[in-house]
Every structure is written in structure tokens, then in C-alpha cells.
């Protein structure tokens, strides 16, 4: 089709370049999967699948006493997901409902870009805030020095919640704005108030989009590294309590990177085993979220 309209000799080169560009993203994905899984296979030559998935203690980086039960790191990640969502969901969904159902279009056009700024802040900045302000000046005076370790999951979770607020708010707002006006007008006609329309009509109708927004936010929390590495600690800990020092999957990966593990050692390959686990988690959640988004779009278009 395109070759029929070729008139200039240079055009063939340009079109070849465009095809290569189109292939770059595919090559990237293939490379990520190949790299993660080849080194992970090396890891499982030394550590059995049972020791990875059935043991509950993660103790790497100390020669002689290694133990690679991944659940301690997964629990660390689950811990920050749980507590960040406890704080992000009410405010994120509240913001989405306000922007979609209450705000004047002009108010919305001012508030939305301001809210988006939260997603633009580099995560190392949130990491600094979590460690020096949230823990030192908020949590410790609130709960007492002896109850709040300097590295704790709650300080990281609070900053993660602020980080993902725009994701939850803007994706859910899109879903609510896509709810047909007829549904709202029907409810108003029956005497419902604005609050009732928002919570009993629009919210349930947009539920699939809202779930997708929350899943995207969870995937971002799971993959975030700097905040948890700086503020949540580096002690793998099988707990969901907020005022404990923990280590997440990403936190462990950064610790190995800083320690400069030599290629071929068990610590180097454990990095890839954890990375593969992380990749599988975020990939699955993202695929489910985009599946939900595409299905709910079809329903109203």
C-alpha cells in the first residue's frame, strides 16, 4: 500500500526507520522478559522453588545464613499497599466524586492540573519527606518515640498515598464522567439529592472504572522504590502492622544494587528472582486493569 505512493529515493529509508521505531517497544518487552527469566533460572539452580515460595524467612546478603523465603518481602509490599490505600482511597475517590459531580467546570479545570502536580513530584522528594518530616515531626510526637521506629511502613505509606492520589482521582473521574446523563436525570426526576445521585447512581455505574483506577494505583505502589527504600526500612518482616520496620521487594532490589553484588553470586541472581516476582505482580495487575477499562468503555459507547 505504502510502496505504491513512493516517489523519492529517500522515502524507503524513512519508512524502514519508522518500522524499526515500531519494533523498539516490542524488543524492550522481549529483553525484559528474557533477562529476568534467564537469571531467575540461575537462581533456582541453587535455591529450590520450595525454599523460595514455602519458607517465610528472607535473609540474604549475610554469607552462611542465607534463607530465601520470598513471602517476607511480599508481605512488606502488601503492608505498604494496604496502608497507602487506607489513606488514598477516601481522599482519591472523594476528589473524583467532587470533580465529576459537584465542581463547576471552571473549578475543575483549575483543580485538576494542581492535583496532577502530586504525580509529577520526584519520588526521592517524597522519600525525604517520609523520613525527615512524617516520621520525625508527625508520627513520633503522635505515638511516642518508643513506639515508632525511625524506619516504619506507615511513613512510607502516607507519602505513597499522596503520590497515587492523582492516579485514583483522575482515572475514577473519567469513569464517572462517562456515566450517561440520562441515569443522573432519571434519579433527579425521582427526587434524589446530589449526594444520593453521586453515591447511589454514578458511583455504582462507574464501579468497574473505579476498580481499574485503584488497581493502577496499587501497581504504582508495588513498583515504587525510593520512598520504601528510604523510609520503610531494610528488615524483612512478615507483618501488616503499620508501625514496624519492613522491607519490600523493590527495597531489597535497591539494597542489592547499592551493595554492588558480583555477577554470578547468589545475591546477584536473587535480585532477578525478586524482580521477576515484582514484574509478574505489576504486569498481572496492569493487564487486569486495562482489560476492565476496555470492557467498561465498550459498555457506554
Amino acid at each position, binding site marked *: 500500500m505504502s510502496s505504491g505512493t513512493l516517489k523519492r529515493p529517500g522515502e524507503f529509508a524513512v519508512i524502514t526507520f519508522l518500522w524499526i521505531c515500531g519494533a523498539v517497544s516490542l524488543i524492550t518487552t522481549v*529483553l525484559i522478559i528474557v533477562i529476568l527469566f534467564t537469571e531467575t533460572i540461575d537462581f533456582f539452580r541453587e535455591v529450590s522453588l520450595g525454599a523460595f515460595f514455602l519458607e517465610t524467612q528472607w535473609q540474604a546478603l549475610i554469607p552462611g545464613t542465607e534463607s530465601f523465603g520470598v513471602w517476607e518481602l511480599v508481605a512488606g509490599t502488601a503492608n505498604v499497599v494496604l496502608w497507602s490505600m487506607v489513606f488514598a482511597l477516601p481522599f482519591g475517590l472523594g476528589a473524583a466524586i467532587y470533580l465529576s459531580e459537584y465542581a463547576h467546570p471552571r473549578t475543575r479545570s483549575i483543580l485538576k492540573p494542581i492535583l496532577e502536580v502530586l504525580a509529577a513530584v520526584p519520588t526521592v522528594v517524597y522519600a525525604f519527606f517520609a523520613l525527615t518530616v512524617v516520621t520525625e515531626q508527625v508520627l513520633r510526637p503522635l505515638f511516642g518515640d518508643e513506639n515508632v521506629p525511625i524506619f516504619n511502613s506507615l511513613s512510607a505509606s502516607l507519602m505513597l498515598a499522596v503520590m497515587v492520589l492523582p492516579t485514583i482521582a483522575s482515572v475514577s473521574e473519567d469513569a464517572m464522567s462517562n456515566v450517561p446523563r440520562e441515569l443522573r436525570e432519571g434519579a433527579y426526576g425521582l427526587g434524589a439529592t446530589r449526594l444520593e445521585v453521586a453515591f447511589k447512581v454514578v458511583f455504582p455505574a462507574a464501579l468497574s472504572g473505579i476498580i481499574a483506577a485503584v488497581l493502577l494505583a496499587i501497581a504504582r505502589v508495588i513498583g515504587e522504590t525510593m520512598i520504601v527504600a528510604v523510609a520503610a526500612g531494610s528488615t524483612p518482616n512478615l507483618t501488616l502492622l503499620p508501625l514496624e520496620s519492613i522491607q519490600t521487594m523493590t527495597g531489597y532490589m535497591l539494597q542489592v544494587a547499592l551493595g554492588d553484588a558480583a555477577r554470578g553470586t547468589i545475591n546477584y541472581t536473587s535480585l*532477578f528472582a525478586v524482580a521477576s516476582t515484582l514484574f509478574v505482580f505489576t504486569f498481572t495487575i496492569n493487564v487486569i486493569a486495562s482489560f476492565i477499562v476496555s470492557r467498561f468503555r465498550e459498555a457506554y459507547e
Partner: protein
Amino acid sequence: MSSVTAPPEQISLRAQGSVARRQALSRASRYLLFVAPLVGVGVLVILMINTLRTGLPVLDWQFLTSYPSRLPEQAGLRSSLIGTAFVLVTTIILSIPVAIGSAVFLEEFAPRGRFTNLVRLNIANLAGVPSIIYGILGLTVFVRGFEIQGVTVFPALGTTILAGSLTLALMILPMTIIAAVEAIRQVPPSIRDGSLALGATRLQTIRYHILPGAQPGIMTGTILAISRAAGETAALIMIGAFAFIAFDNKSVNDDFTTVPIQIYNWTTRPQTAFQQNAAAGIIVLMVMVLTLNLIAVLIRERYRRK
């Protein structure tokens, strides 16, 4: 209900009983929900004021022009500012042509079918891959070199500016492509059809009509992506960019550090003086990132009004 017994002049349109309660609740909810979008921003403002108070006393010309140091009073951002500039420029050069090429390919050339759908789906999924995974990709392919069965596919670059920029370029590629695709879709089909009808080739149509029309959107997306690259820390630490750099970068084959890496370094030190340096570094980084975001918003708003 009660209007049956009341004289006509006392009829009130004001709701009573449970209806009044529901309406009052609804009116109150407006103010309650208005707080929700402001909470996150409020938290950020409070934290930034706190940081300004800690960091501003340290932030002076000497801080911006000094190399890192073991002594907090003498440490500065010189090598990390130069490193950030090098990395960002190289990342732009590496990623923007490929991003625009990918978007043009997807919108104008790709055959409609399974392959193109796969590429689209893949780009959406890549946008959700955590940055630290891109760091692992950069470490294994760009820093340590990649070979299959002893054949070198990619040479080992070491922890250089080029390796860091390649890593960041791959990281921002998905979001830049998505922005460019959206921008190209905004160009009215009548412009494309008119150009083709007048005898222009498809490449001439793209070069003289579609790309100029999509330019504001592409620029907005690119600037936002660059702002993300400017603040990225985890991917660069993963490739090993955590060295003590006390010289000015001259080429893309140099070791490097960047402003966010330097902030991380200072944050993890226990001394308060280093925490002050971290706060001062955050002020510099936030000014950079917020300026880039402001420019992106301004371009978008100006374009929208036309």
C-alpha cells in the same frame, strides 16, 4: 403533607422532615468533598514550606558550584547538575525521534491487524512497568553488555552517561509514544485527505501537515516525560550510578551522578547538616520539575484555546 391543614398563605416550599434532612446532608457533602482534592495538595504545600525553611539557608551560589564532599558545609550540587544536564540532553536525543517515529508508524503506516494491536497493547503495558525494572534492563544490557551464545549483541558501556540515558530513554518511551499518538489523532482527517488529494506523498503529508499539527501535543508529552526522567532515581542507582563524582563531565562516556541521586545520598546520611543539603537539593529539583510541568500546561492551554 401538612399543607392540607395549613392556611394557603403559610404554604412553604421549604422541604420538611426526612426530605429536609436529605437535602441538608447533600448540601453539607459539597463542602466535605471539596476538601478531598485539596488534602493531597495541602500536604505537599506544608511539606514544601518545611523543606524551604530547612534548605534555603544552605542554598547559595557556593552550594550550586561545589563538588560533593565529606564535609556537609563544603558539599554542593556542581557535578550532579552537570550530570543531570548531560543525561537529560542525551535522553532527549535518543528517545524523541524513536517516540515520534513509533507514533507515526502506529497511526500512519502500521497495517491494521494483529501485529499493530500487539504493539499498542505492549506499549500500554510497558508504561506500567516499574522504573527499577528498567534499571535492571539497563544494568544487564547497557552497563554489562549483552551477548547471546558468545556473540556480542550490545557492547558493555559501564556505568556511563550513555548507559544511563539509554535506560531513561527506554523508560520514558511508552509515555512519550502514547502522548504523540494522541497528538497525531487530534489532527483533523480533512487536512490529511486534502494534502494527499493535492498529490503529496504520505511522507510529505506527515512532514508538512501532520507533524506540525501535532507539535504542541508532542511537545507537552515530551516535556512531561523529561520531567519524569529528571526526577528518576531508582533506575539510575540500579545501573550503579552511585559514585562519588568530583569532576565536570566532558563526554557521554564519563561516570556521572544526578541531582536526585545526590539528594538520596544526603538523605541517607545521619548528620543534620547533610539533611539540610538534601532539603536544598530538593528545592533545586522541585524548581526544575515544576518549571517543566508549568511549561507543559501552558503549551497545552494555549493550544486548546485555538
